């Protein structure tokens, strides 16, 4: 009887369709809360959300983030408020994708998205600079730096209809 049970199990599994995901051609959809490669977001008018406060770098348990801030002026404005991130680098080989930077960010500038295909043949390629992280300018927005009227963007979180 035992041998028949075993054979039945074999036949049952032989008739099922294979479970393999053909990875490079077909990708499994990740969960909504999955944390992958970071992006730096912008406001709808094209200004960068990052204000260069380095709180993400302070919160990072792996020391993967390096931020260098510089002063904004009304002639060359990158972000609302006083400062912007002149240099923003994340070492993807150091980052453990914990999302603490996301939690620490006061302007919700840095978000961990769903991209995960990260492998490198050189360690230096793993350092992602600001150009590689920042999202493209949204439709209707202007690229940074922008020339704005003095007094429009004095606060780091601007008075917008919906700052999110």
């Amino acid at each position, binding site marked *: 009887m035992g041998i028949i049970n075993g054979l039945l199990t074999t036949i049952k599994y032989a008739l099922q369709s294979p479970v*393999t995901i053909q990875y490079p051609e077909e990708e499994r959809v990740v969960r909504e809360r999955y944390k992958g490669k970071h992006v730096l977001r912008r406001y709808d008018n094209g200004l960068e959300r990052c204000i260069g406060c380095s709180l993400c770098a302070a919160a990072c*348990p*792996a020391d993967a983030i390096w931020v260098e801030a510089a002063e904004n002026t009304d002639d060359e404005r990158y972000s609302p408020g006083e400062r912007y991130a002149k240099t923003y680098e994340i070492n993807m*080989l150091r980052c*453990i994708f914990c999302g603490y930077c996301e939690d620490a960010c006061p302007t919700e500038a840095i978000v961990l998205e769903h991209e*995960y*295909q*990260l492998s490198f043949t050189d*360690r230096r390629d*793993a350092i992602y600079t600001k150009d590689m992280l920042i999202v493209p300018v949204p439709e209707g927005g202007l690229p940074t730096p922008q020339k704005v009227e003095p007094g429009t963007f004095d606060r780091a979180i601007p008075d917008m209809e919906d700052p999110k």
Partner: protein
Amino acid sequence: MGVSGKLGNLGVVTLRLEDAVNWGRTRAMWPMLFGLACCAIEMMSSQAPAYDASRFGMELMRASPRQSDLMIVAGRVTRKMAPVLRQLYDQMPDPKWVIAMGDCASCGGVFNNYAIVQGVDEVVPVDVYVAGCPPRPEQLIHGFLTLHEKVKEMRWNEWAQPQETTVIES
């Protein structure tokens, strides 16, 4: 290309020896069973039916370094483990490749302390670094594919020579 033009439509494929050998190497690259920490769980998962690394000719995880071509350093390497890692690497026959899987093997990750080697490229030459903590099985397979691309570009005069060690000044 020149020969195929003369042969016409005879059903003969001509290609360079380099391409043929490199193609063969990418299609049967047996990894060594070298799981050190939590990345090993994802490495096992990439062998399991859902991801099935045998689609890339990697179904056999050899326990012996003498029978393996690829070392997947999966996990953090302690200073005590480093000589063992090097010895196992030296015992592997040429040609051999190394994948540093995950943050700890690539650069120490969160473990920036005296006990952990800050990146296995201090000990062995690494070909591909896979980011993630731990990487998903897809990420490891992406690492395999990156390595395949690298192997396909190898020239014949690089076959026999030991590969260069990458040294990064810290």
